[in-house]
């Protein structure tokens, strides 16, 4: 996508002498977005392009008896109707959501794609799809993940085999003893134990033991732009896909395997992503590519909001049983948990990160955590910003509050006493690198919201709640290229989709290394045929990994210029520096060669220098977990159950905020989503497994008037490997909301909330008023 580079000046130099990083910079893509110029996948048209309308399964679980497409095919303007029988050959993997385009025997969830109609007119396609005569024989639908674990439960589906977990690994790196479903067929897709010490002894030692069950609803990422994909397969065997994705290279690799096409003959272009939040990794591309291969014409598939809510990859319902023990002095003595994540009809639920976080915030010698990923006949789940984290955090952070209250301890002091720091153990036995959980707690203590606690809590029906959150982050190798142009400007090319302003951070990093104004640097995301490799923009790792590659590429380019300048400047590279868009001799800035001169000398006819191209390529081995502490100020209407938020504060460790404006935006955005999950968001199914609210009226996201001002405090505990000490930023902010609000409500009206969303009705019932 072409982007305009706006001239922008740095606002100054910070305490560390930085001129570009650490500055508050507006986004490279900002002007195009706010003026409506940005081109999204749905804006793109190809000659001869066909539109797709999909037939979605009308049952949660049913045998396909027959599919008669004659009437649909007969509609004037219909180009083709494609069912499982009409698909081109592909490497089908029935146990994977993205390994199976259309089922031929059995549908496993309400909304599963069964067939597609193609037409040049999208309205014709929509009309014809209703004429497909599909006969189903309903089978027992398994909808409750907890009941589905019972031995006598009906099975959701055939036993799993060859489960591909590569997508999950993109979001978080967890080393563990996870076991896939084996032995007797069951609905448990996988399970994992995390054990340390002796929990029985730990509980015996405790002065109080709290045991509760916590439930959090299935929620949807609710990006503004639903899934949107165009594919084209030409007669020479080249496959091109333009798609709204966070993961172009991942899709390339998957499609190469699916169709047996070499990776160098597939071009995936990540179009501008109108919101992804983990939900735009790989979903519709296989089907659209197969349709394009089948009809040899470009095929476009744009999900409607309803399609997307029925048939994308929302975030799971979780049922979490937690038992904790604490001594009177606030020492956590034992933690036992059973976490059940509802994965829907295919594996992929983020159970592992939930286990890692429920036992990962506080030091505890005795833990016994078991996670289960359970199949049901619902749409299968995917990632949503820190997948699995808010569910587990709601449980442990509510417990911490209950225990503080019972023991008469200050909730913040008690958390500080137990909070993990560098060298402490994670549930899987690894140790934490430098992290900023304690620093976040200290910072939130200084927020306006927390400081008015006494005053607020003296007001009837008002309360303040606190919770921490965190995310471990993903790791993947990354690369970048920086090219010097003849006029001395620089082009950076990366392969990572820019979903959060990462290209703007890369611009800052390049400008910092080469000591040039920001407008000298342009950054583009290339497609998979032109860009150097980058992992998926997921797991909060893009600036942390690709940013390092960009920094290395800029340093490489600088070094090349230094070496080329040796003859003319008559000094060694160690005695050179970059400043004022030139390479100059330290202490003698008039002995210099401008970037422009390097540009000309490396590109003109007969020029003496080779083309100057900086290359950065890194392996990422060390995680840089990001933590947050958040405080909510709420008021409860004790007669209606309505909750009003008067304020919200978030402190988050960014390691080093390369663009504080962008970091604050991430903090506010994630906090808003956490608040949404706490109070409104819930996908609701009826007893037959049909989604009741596939729209944004009855699936409620908070609006501007529902959200309070969100106070942001950036904490900076540098990471070891990240560029300039930056660590993961995108995800932690969503994690603490449900617990912080649940704790605030308890503080306001003395009613503990065990289920999110906390609807007015649930709240009133918990208060015994209904």
């Amino acid at each position, binding site marked *: 996508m072409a982007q305009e580079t706006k001239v922008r000046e740095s606002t100054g130099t910070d305490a560390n002498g930085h001129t570009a990083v650490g500055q508050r910079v507006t986004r490279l893509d900002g002007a195009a977005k706010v003026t409506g110029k940005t081109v999204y996948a749905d804006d793109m048209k190809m000659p001869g392009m066909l539109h797709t309308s999909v037939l979605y399964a009308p049952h949660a679980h049913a045998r396909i008896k027959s599919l008669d497409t004659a009437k649909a095919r007969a509609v004037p303007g219909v180009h083709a109707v494609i069912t499982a029988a009409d698909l081109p050959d592909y490497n089908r993997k029935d146990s994977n959501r993205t390994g199976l385009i259309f089922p031929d025997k059995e549908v496993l969830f309400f909304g599963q794609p069964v067939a597609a109609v193609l037409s040049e007119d999208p*309205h014709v396609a*929509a*009309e014809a799809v*209703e004429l497909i005569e599909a006969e189903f024989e309903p089978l027992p639908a398994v909808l409750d993940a907890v009941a589905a674990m019972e031995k006598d439960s009906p099975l959701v589906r055939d036993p799993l085999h060859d489960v591909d977990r590569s997508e999950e690994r993109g979001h978080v790196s967890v080393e563990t003893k996870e076991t896939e479903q084996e032995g007797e067929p069951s609905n448990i897709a996988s399970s994992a134990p995390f054990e340390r010490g002796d929990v029985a002894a730990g509980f015996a030692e405790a002065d109080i033991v709290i045991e509760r069950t916590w439930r959090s609803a299935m929620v949807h990422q609710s990006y503004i732009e639903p899934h949107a994909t165009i594919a084209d397969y030409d007669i020479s065997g080249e496959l091109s896909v333009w798609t709204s994705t966070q993961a172009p290279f991942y899709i390339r690799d998957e499609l190469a395997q699916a169709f047996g096409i070499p990776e160098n003959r597939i071009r995936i272009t990540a179009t501008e992503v109108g919101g992804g939040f983990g939900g735009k990794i790989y979903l519709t591309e296989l089907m659209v590519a197969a349709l394009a291969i089948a009809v040899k014409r470009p095929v476009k598939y744009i999900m409607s909001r*309803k399609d997307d809510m029925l048939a994308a990859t929302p975030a799971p319902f979780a049922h979490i049983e937690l038992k904790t023990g604490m001594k009177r002095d606030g020492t956590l003595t034992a933690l036992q948990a059973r976490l059940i994540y509802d994965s829907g009809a295919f594996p992929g639920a983020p159970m592992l990160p939930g286990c890692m976080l429920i036992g990962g915030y506080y030091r505890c010698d005795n833990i016994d955590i078991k996670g289960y990923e359970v199949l049901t006949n619902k749409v299968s789940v995917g990632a949503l910003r820190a997948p699995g984290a808010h569910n587990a955090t709601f449980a442990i952070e509510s417990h911490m509050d209950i225990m503080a209250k019972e023991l008469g301890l200050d909730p913040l002091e008690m958390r500080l006493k137990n909070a993990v720091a560098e060298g402490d153990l994670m549930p899987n036995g690894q140790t934490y690198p430098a992290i900023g959980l304690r620093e976040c707690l200290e910072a939130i203590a200084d927020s306006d919201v927390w400081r008015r606690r006494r005053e607020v809590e003296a007001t009837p029906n008002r309360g303040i709640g606190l919770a921490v959150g965190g995310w471990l982050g993903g790791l993947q190798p990354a690369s970048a290229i920086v090219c010097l142009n003849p006029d001395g400007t620089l082009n950076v090319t990366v392969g990572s989709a820019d979903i959060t302003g990462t290209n703007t951070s890369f611009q800052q990093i390049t400008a910092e290394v080469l000591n040039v104004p920001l407008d000298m640097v342009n950054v583009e995301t290339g497609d998979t045929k032109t860009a150097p490799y980058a992992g998926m923009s997921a797991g909060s790792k893009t600036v942390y990994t690709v940013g390092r590659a960009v920094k290395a590429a800029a340093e490489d380019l600088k070094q090349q210029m230094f070496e080329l300048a040796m003859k003319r400047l008559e000094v060694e590279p160690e005695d050179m520096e970059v400043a004022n868009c030139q390479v100059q001799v330290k202490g003698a800035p008039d002995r210099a060669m401008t970037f422009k001169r390097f540009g000309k000398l490396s590109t003109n006819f007969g020029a003496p220098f080779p083309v100057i191209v900086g290359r950065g390529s890194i392996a990422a081995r060390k995680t840089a977990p990001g933590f947050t502490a958040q405080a909510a100020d709420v008021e409860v209407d004790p*007669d*209606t159950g*309505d909750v009003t938020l008067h304020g919200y504060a978030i402190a988050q460790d960014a390691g080093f905020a390369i663009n504080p404006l962008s970091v604050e935006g991430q903090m506010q955005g994630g906090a808003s989503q956490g608040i949404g999950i706490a109070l*409104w968001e819930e996908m*609701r199914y009826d007893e037959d497994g049909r989604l*009741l*609210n596939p729209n944004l*009226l*009855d699936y*409620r996201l*908070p*609006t501007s*008037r*529902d959200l309070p001002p969100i106070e942001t405090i950036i904490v900076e505990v540098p990471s070891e490997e990240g560029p300039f000490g930056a660590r993961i930023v995108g995800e932690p902010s969503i994690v603490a909301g449900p617990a912080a609000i649940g704790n605030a409500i308890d503080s306001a009206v003395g009613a503990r909330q065990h289920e999110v969303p906390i*609807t*007015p*009705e649930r709240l*009133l019932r918990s208060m015994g*008023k*209904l």
Partner: protein
Amino acid sequence: MRTFEYKAPETIDEAVSLLKEAGGSARPLAGGTDLVVQMKERATRFPYPATIVSLDRVSELRGVDFSETDGLRIGAGATMTDVATHPAVRERYAALAEGAGVVGSLQTMNMATIGGNVCNAAPSADTVPPLLVYDAKAVIVGPNGRRTLPIAEFFRGPGETALESDELLAELRLPVPATGTGAAYQRNTPRKQMDIAVVGVAVALTLSGDAIEHARVALGAVAPTPLRAMSAEAALQGQPASEETFAKAAEAAAQDSTPITDIRASADYRRHLVKVMTARLLAEAANRAKGTA
């Protein structure tokens, strides 16, 4: 969306004859904020229309006028914004301004019409409880001329009205509220905007000193149609405007309601809200009545 014929008449008579010609296969289009969404989602309560008769160019349907003798006339084509911002509506019919002022977003309010809100006949329509407490009358035009119906008789069920397929709602007429009248509308929604009433309550009280001379209580989203809470009104009539009276009336209003459990709320919760909101609104209306007396 499927194909349909589109007609754009300029007068009410033309519109009515187009409807008559179509013999039931046409739908009038006002702001489109309900109809177009229903057509896109194939969720119409009626057969998918073969013809759309746009009322956009029918200027006779526009306008909001008030006079001390005739009261308020609102053209069915007046938008929510026209109604909610009209000075006379705000001053004399505050409950209606409140109802029209909460429909959807600002963009919705600029498109949606009061006639559309009434004719869509959703049990939760925000303008209807206010129209009920102001004793509005619906002026209906059909092939055989005009007829007038009390608004309470206009609704027959969810999405169903007294209109024949070749009739149009032309205007709403509201008498001048008596001196000493205070009224208010409120709805409960999970969100603070962009939402649909879980319960809507409108009340109007006319006070003489401290005594209630005249009372109206109307409820939305708690029955197949918006309805007047008759036993609540009876509990108020002639009584002192006191907290006790309001509590009794609120209890009666909850008894008058027949809510269902659906995705938005349970019947229990709705009934509970009717009671809480009616008591609160009666106190508010009494305050307003005293302010105007």
